[in-house]
């Protein structure tokens, strides 16, 4: 087995943009020898782009990728000492199973007896012995994927890149293949870099998960770290189910949310600081007895999910929580709830209001986000550079885009227990954050307007 602590791939300051769209934004990542690393994120987060750069099918605008201290960006794909398992298998239709697997070895001019030995070994590894002479088009999806894996590992690469290899398989097959991939990783002892949007797959397989969004790395950590200590609300929302709530850190080890004060284990946030609180649905304990409970609520719905029941409970202060429990509580039941201090996860807020850069065009108008807004006269002159602040709940969204000053589309939705926190992307690519009680869907096109009383400008120095 290879030494585990040694870095095999080092990615430094990697950036890439397609026109105006930044797909990778200053990525830094070290990958250790023998590690199973998963790049996890929603579609369009840049994970596939990063993998393609490692394979050599795409060049970054900036940055370096080095493997064993050698810059590999200057190498064309055929010289790079890594192999890829493609999402749609990409098996050569004019070759049979054996010829597909032997393709790389033949190019390297390996003697035919050795090729034979290695192809058979690879086939055994993926449990496809006796399939040598089969036409690849006659194989099922799962079998094709096995051949694709065999074709890559037969070359004995130091690093194996896997681009959503199980995405096209059905659930049962996917679960089986996950286990096999994990065993294969252990048996081969090489580095796996795995791209997926399936958080469960990432948690199951990985030594290290790299959560990506909007071309940036949101968090790097072990599956347990990522699940238990998400770095921000995006990670908390993306990995597993969670209740993400607005809270206030009253002082060290005391936090207030859903209208109640709780003891917690976090400290160092300062006093009376706005924070995000994450509670996993399985970490809220339900009891039928409302006395002595931390807080109470009424069960709004209860659905059987196989192992557990999933319930939505409206708390005494009007917040909605998702709770998973082995016991069912019927709709309409009043219940008491407990949360353990160690299960309350507190995160620093990324922002507490919208902040834009703007220029005054007159004492009562400001230009920002590519448009001119009216604002209160705050004694500023035309031409002053200003910072504009707008509270989340003061941005108005309209069904008809004509009703707004700006047009945007709903980019990301976070439910905060009693309201939605939306990220809206304007046509120019700026982000506006909105708190609302209205229900919107991802990619809804909306009109955006802001009342002049809600625009706070201050001079930028």
């Amino acid at each position, binding site marked *: 087995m290879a030494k585990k602590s040694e870095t095999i791939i080092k990615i430094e300051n990697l950036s890439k943009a397609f026109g105006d769209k930044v797909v990778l934004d200053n990525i830094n990542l070290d990958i250790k020898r023998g590690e199973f690393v998963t790049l996890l994120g929603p579609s369009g987060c840049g994970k596939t782009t990063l993998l393609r750069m490692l394979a050599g099918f795409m060049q970054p605008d900036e940055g370096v990728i080095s493997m064993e201290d050698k810059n590999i960006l200057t190498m*064309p794909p055929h010289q790079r000492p890594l192999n*890829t398992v493609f999402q749609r298998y*990409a098996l050569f*239709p*004019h070759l049979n199973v054996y010829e597909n697997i032997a393709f790389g070895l033949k*190019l390297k001019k390996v003697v035919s007896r050795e090729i034979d030995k290695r192809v058979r070994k690879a086939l055994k590894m993926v449990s496809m012995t006796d399939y040598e002479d089969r036409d690849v088009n006659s194989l099922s999806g799962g079998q094709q994927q096995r051949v694709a894996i065999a*074709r890559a590992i037969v070359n004995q690469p130091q690093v194996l890149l896997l681009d959503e290899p199980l995405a096209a398989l059905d659930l049962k097959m996917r679960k089986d293949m996950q286990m096999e991939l994990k065993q294969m990783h252990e048996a081969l002892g090489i580095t796996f870099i795995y791209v997926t949007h399936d958080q469960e797959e990432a948690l199951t397989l990985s030594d290290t998960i790299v959560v990506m969004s909007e071309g940036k790395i949101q968090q790097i950590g072990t599956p347990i770290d990522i699940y238990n200590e998400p770095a921000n609300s995006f990670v908390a929302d993306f990995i597993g189910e969670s209740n993400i709530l607005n809270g206030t850190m009253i002082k060290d080890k005391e936090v207030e949310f859903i209208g109640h004060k709780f003891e917690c284990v976090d400290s160092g946030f300062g006093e009376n600081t706005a924070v995000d609180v994450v509670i996993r649905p399985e970490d809220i304990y339900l009891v039928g007895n409302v006395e002595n409970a931390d807080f109470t609520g009424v069960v709004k719905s209860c659905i059987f999910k196989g192992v557990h029941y999933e319930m939505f409970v409206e708390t005494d202060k009007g917040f909605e929580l998702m709770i998973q429990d082995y016991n069912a509580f019927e709709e309409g039941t009043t219940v008491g709830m407990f949360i353990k201090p160690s299960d309350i996860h507190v995160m620093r807020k990324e922002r507490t209001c919208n902040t834009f850069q703007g220029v005054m065009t007159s004492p009562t108008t400001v230009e920002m986000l590519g448009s001119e807004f009216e604002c209160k006269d705050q004694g500023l002159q035309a031409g002053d550079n200003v910072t504009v602040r707008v509270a989340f709940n003061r941005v108005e969204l309209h069904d008809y885009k004509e009703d707004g000053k700006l047009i945007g589309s709903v980019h990301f939705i976070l439910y905060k227990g009693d309201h939605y926190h939306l990220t809206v992307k304007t046509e120019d690519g700026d982000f506006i954050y909105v708190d609302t009680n209205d229900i919107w869907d991802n990619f809804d096109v909306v009109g955006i307007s802001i009342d002049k009383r809600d625009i706070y400008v201050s001079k930028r120095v």
Partner: protein
Amino acid sequence: MKFVAKIFNKRANWAIPYAIFLALFVALPLVLILVYAFQDAEGAFSLDNFRRFVEQPEAVNTFIYSIGIALITTILCILLGYPAAWILSNRKLNRSEITVVLFILPMWINILVRTLATVALFDFAKLPLGEGALIFGMVYNFLPFMIYPIYNTLQKMDHSLIEAAEDLGATPWKVFRKVTVPLSMPGVMSGIMMVFMPTISTFAIAELLTMNNVKLFGTTIQENINNGMWNYGAALSLIMLVIIGITSLFSDGEEQNDSESLI
């Protein structure tokens, strides 16, 4: 009225006009060729026409010569057409559909008009008409029929296969030889069918571009029929049909889809 409606209601009946068309213009002529080929001038069964073909060195030579010209044309079309198709299908080298249309455009003009224009062009450039002009004319006329099927297969090819080959260590040249070429073979085969078969039987191009100096097999058939030698002409046509039938057997089954979408 009701009777007519009844006929139209049954979908199978819609095929009747086509069946009549096929019977009259495809099946019947073929049967006539077959019958005439095995008859002598008096209408009695005989193999004289075929004997005459085998015994007459002139006809056999024209036949072999025609196949030779068709082969040369086909090979030249592959050599010129494959790179053109490859460039057209390469997204880095060609970004517009218009260039593809430009290559296909000559096919919109009647073959005789194009050939007459070629004659005028050769006259203008003071180039001699003859065998060279014939091959030029053939290649010029049939090149689009080679480019388009190849372009079609190359364009539909899954790009990840090329990436997979690169990933497994293939240099760009090896990728071309081991993946691109084998996967485009169906297109090449349809191209061959669409060039080789019609070039064996053309006569107009040969007449116009060689001032009737070079005789192709198509010309021989035409001359015989024009001179009232129906039986001998039919026999020659039958021989040609058999040869074309044999070539099409070589590539059968693989590439039915590729010539379908020809503009």
